[in-house]
């Protein structure tokens, strides 16, 4: 029986044959945490009396959730993490100013490579599946254990194959494809599974849309969301700073032709219009033509879901020469410092600022209702992030609608949810 991408990576790491449902202990190539999950993991390590990490070169720490520190508490947490990184010579401690949002930083710096296994103390760790790595979110205890032993226990997941064929309509992107998929599968439709995304649509789209889709694999309950390796992957991976310096070897994981999938879907994308996930679940998805007269108070464009350079370009295209509607606040959240820098090179922040947006530093702040754009009572927000549970971005009564960046930008100009064709 052939292997799927996930099975291939796990078998290679376990050094044995694997079958779905089996539990394996595998070496991890990177164990990553943000300041919140890291603080808990460090507390665990201390409780366990662990003095030495298995391999500080395989540890990555990125403060992003409440960073730059939103208050004294957050500063204290960030300091614990910083001190830990220094004490243990952690190779991939990325300080505010040299990083951004963890999932946007990791693949672009080359911290994870194709065929590798990464666990991360954050559910959206699955984002790096876009570069053909088995990347999955775990909890802080798992992270502590991996730092101590270099290993993690994983249940070999069943795999799902989702195939996207056809020609995309204007203003339809990876975000719309994944929202469309969530409408079909629901928030538990792929629980415990590794999703493999395939299809000719990915030849039309830049690689960034793969990250958006892999990012939201977890929203269907999946363990990871994987893409095949192709020329676009190679180009990205081999232009990362780490690769350029070290040229590390990596082993691409290609699925076998006779691999077995527990769930299969073929989507014809030609008829899909921009999608909107309405409150209060990412699977409460409608066509934008069905979402009428939703007035907004705030738009958030960016995050680890849609803070890639191409996303900023798509939003800027809508804002160019236009103004944000009265009574609407817009926060642009580039995924990382590197992406922000590239945006400056292309003159995008100037377009945002001229339109009346905030060009924010790269942080999770608004996405998690933490700081820098928390919603008040009954406020409505259109957001390119990945979750819209009640209270996610602030007050319990506030509402979040999830869209792609072009639609979010158009909505900001219109003052209500709408498409770029309407501005």
């Amino acid at each position, binding site marked *: 029986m052939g292997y799927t991408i996930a099975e291939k990576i796990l078998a290679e790491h376990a050094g044995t044959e694997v079958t779905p449902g089996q*539990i394996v*202990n595998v070496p991890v190539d990177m164990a990553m945490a943000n300041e*919140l*999950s890291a*603080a*808990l993991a460090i*507390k*665990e390590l201390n*409780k*366990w*009396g*662990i003095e030495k990490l298995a391999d500080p070169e395989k540890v990555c720490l990125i403060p992003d*959730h*409440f960073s730059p520190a939103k208050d004294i*508490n*957050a500063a204290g*947490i960030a300091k614990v993490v910083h001190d830990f990184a220094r004490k243990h010579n952690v190779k991939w401690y990325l300080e505010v100013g040299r990083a951004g949002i963890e999932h946007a930083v990791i693949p672009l710096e080359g911290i994870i490579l194709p065929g590798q296994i990464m666990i991360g*103390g*954050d*559910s959206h*760790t699955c984002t790096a599946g876009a570069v053909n790595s088995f990347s999955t*979110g*775990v*909890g*802080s*205890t*798992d992270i*502590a*254990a991996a730092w*101590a*032993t270099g*290993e993690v*226990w994983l249940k070999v997941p069943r795999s799902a194959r989702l195939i996207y064929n056809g020609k995309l309509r204007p203003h339809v992107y990876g975000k719309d494809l994944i929202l469309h998929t969530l409408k079909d599968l629901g*928030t*538990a439709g792929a*629980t*415990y599974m590794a999703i493999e995304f395939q299809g000719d649509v990915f030849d039309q789209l830049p690689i960034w849309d793969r990250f958006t889709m892999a990012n939201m694999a*977890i929203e269907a*309950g999946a*363990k990871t969301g994987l893409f095949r390796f192709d020329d676009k992957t190679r180009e990205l991976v081999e232009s990362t700073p780490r690769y350029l310096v070290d040229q590390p070897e990596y082993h691409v994981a290609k699925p076998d032709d006779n691999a077995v999938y527990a769930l299969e879907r073929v989507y014809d994308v030609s008829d899909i219009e921009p999608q909107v996930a309405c409150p209060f*679940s990412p699977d409460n998805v409608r066509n934008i033509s069905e979402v009428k007269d939703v007035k907004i108070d705030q738009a958030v464009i960016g995050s680890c879901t849609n803070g890639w350079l191409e996303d900023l370009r798509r939003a800027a295209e809508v804002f160019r020469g236009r103004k944000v509607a009265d009574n609407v606040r817009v926060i642009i959240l580039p995924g990382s410092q590197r992406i922000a820098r590239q945006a400056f090179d292309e003159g995008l922040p100037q377009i945002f600022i001229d339109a009346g947006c905030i060009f924010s530093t790269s942080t999770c702040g608004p996405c*998690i*209702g*933490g700081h820098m754009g928390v919603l008040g009572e009954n406020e409505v927000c259109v957001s390119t992030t990945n*979750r819209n*549970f*009640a*209270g*996610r971005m602030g007050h*319990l009564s506030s509402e979040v609608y999830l869209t792609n960046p072009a639609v979010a930008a158009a909505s900001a100009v219109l003052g209500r949810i709408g498409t770029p064709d309407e501005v």
Partner: protein
Amino acid sequence: MNIKGKVYRVGENINTDVIMPGRWCHLTDDAELAEHCMEDLDADFHKKISKGDVIVADDNFGCGSSREVAPLSIKASGIGGIVAKSFARIFYRNAINIGLPIFESPECVEATEAGDELEIDMFGGTIINHTKGREFTFAPFPPFMKTIIEKGGLKGWVLEKLGK
């Protein structure tokens, strides 16, 4: 090993944002975590729970963010275990790793109401609803998970592996 207590009943898709809202995610102290556990669903949750009580939930309990403070806060509040139709996967492994026992039994969930008296035989694979006078079974844990649970969480496994 047995868990015995009364039932706190919730519905489906209880996400970790509800169990431990983002605004409290910086907490690491057990008592504080317990105080805010489930507060967006039921502000008095921590007052209603006695040690050993059991949460009974429909499908996909613990979906959303990977925050380990979610299961930690539940454990800190005194809950002895959770029975659900199904769990979101990160929540599942977090719970096992921190030594909060969880069980999948759709039949038990269907038949159980708030306030019922439950008794769970963790390794025997049975749940007795004393109030309703009924018994249910659940699939036994795979050997590796059983080891972790017996050791009270992942900690025991790590220390053994490192020869401590």
